[in-house]
């Protein structure tokens, strides 16, 4: 079925870039998720309001609109602002940076909920015990809460990752040569759209299957201190 005509290399490069974009975005999403969960759990009003509006806005707007807003909108905002103070500047946003930041921010909102649930799932007695042996709140978090949070957070984070890696296909719209974009290029060049898109879809499927296997391993690792019933 596959007559690759030298375009298979393009798909392979695209796959690498897709995974790279996915990993970078996931790191941003995890960092933002931890910050967001902290904001939602503290008693202070301002962090809580900020975290609430962050998750509401980023979960309520389509990824495509946000990607276009960041890629086309942000440079024009800055240029307009510069013009207002009498400076003429031209800004070009790198599609990789724009894509990674946007996807990272969107899925940070989703992992906020994951981390919040994971924190609440750690029994309160554990935190009390850590504090009563004289650990500072930060140390109690690092040594007692965070290691246990991973166990509760991993299934949710796995889901976020699976959705995230598929969402990276949208970055093709701003011409980042990842898997979707390269499949598109090959499809147009060879006039075999079905062949190329189908191959690309199978690669995405392969990434999903590999992620599921890794997730099983990671969950076993995070639960190694737990007695199996």
């Amino acid at each position, binding site marked *: 079925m596959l007559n690759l005509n030298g375009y298979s290399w393009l798909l392979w490069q695209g796959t690498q870039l897709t995974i790279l974009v996915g990993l970078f975005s996931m790191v941003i999403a995890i960092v933002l998720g931890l910050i967001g969960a902290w904001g939602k759990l503290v008693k202070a009003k301002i962090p809580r309001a900020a975290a609430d509006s962050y998750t509401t*806005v980023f979960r*309520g*707007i*389509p*990824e*495509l*609109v*946000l990607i*276009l*807003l960041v890629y*086309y*909108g*942000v440079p*024009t*905002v800055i240029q*307009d602002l510069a013009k207002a103070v009498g400076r003429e500047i031209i800004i070009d946003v790198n599609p990789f940076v724009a894509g990674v930041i946007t996807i990272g921010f969107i899925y940070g909102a989703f992992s906020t909920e994951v981390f919040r649930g994971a924190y609440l799932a750690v029994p309160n007695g554990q935190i009390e015990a850590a504090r009563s042996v004289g650990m500072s709140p930060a140390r109690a978090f690092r040594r007692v809460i965070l290691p246990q949070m991973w166990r509760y957070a991993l299934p949710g984070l796995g889901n976020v990752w699976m959705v995230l890696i*598929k*969402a990276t*296909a*949208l970055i*093709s*719209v701003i011409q980042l040569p990842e898997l*979707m974009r390269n*499949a*598109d290029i090959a*499809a147009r060049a060879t*006039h*075999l*759209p*079905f*062949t190329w*898109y*189908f191959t*690309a*879809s199978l690669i*995405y*499927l392969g990434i*999903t*299957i590999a992620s599921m296997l890794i997730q099983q391993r990671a969950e076993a690792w995070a639960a190694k201190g737990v007695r199996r019933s």
Partner: protein
Amino acid sequence: MEFGIVWDSLPQLLNGALITIELTTISVLIGLCLAVPLSLMRVSTNPFFRMPAYGFIFYFRGTPLLIQIFLIYYGSGQFQELLSQIGLWTFFREAHFCAILSLTLNTAAYTAEILRGSIQAVPFGEIEAARAAGMSTGLQYRRIILPKAFRLAWPAYTNEVVFLLQATSLVSIITVMDITGVVRVIAARSFAFYELFITAALFYLGLVYGVLFLFRKVEFRLTRHRLDRITIVKKAPSGSVGLK
């Protein structure tokens, strides 16, 4: 900043919003009709039914929606002759039709998986009771399992509908003039990028909250029997004295 452009293009934007609502509604309704038999096939013990449903669900949940849209819209061009022969090419030529087809298949797969989970979450005691009362398998599904499964699935299904509403924005890439499509065309002409994309974002936020509001109302109705029980329990101590 030129928010005047937003005001001037309001009629087009509202038209786009209508298209978005239309795409969402049609795909959700047909998708649900497909999802119910799919989920029943998926929980079947017969591999002849189970495996095709499993494969369909796995493929459509495991690949990006954008690729599915491109496969149907551009990919069908590779089979143009065959499709013209059986008279389907007139449909596949239309971006609007391809958009609805891909959105429907996508949401059918996700909804079927949600329903599978909730069908399997129906407490076995209820099925046992239905069997003990002499119900046939079909009657069990119609009267006991599916109503319960729908109720269990509703919160997750609400999420799926919200995701689908947002996912309709992708059809703008194959030239359908939904909210995103309209905004992209006007932005390319006027260079008022952020003004228009922020407006589009606000439109979507409004629609998402509209959907959430509607679905919460339905959820409230679906769980009526439980709310009644809660109010009765709360009222009981003050009202009756000699219950114990």
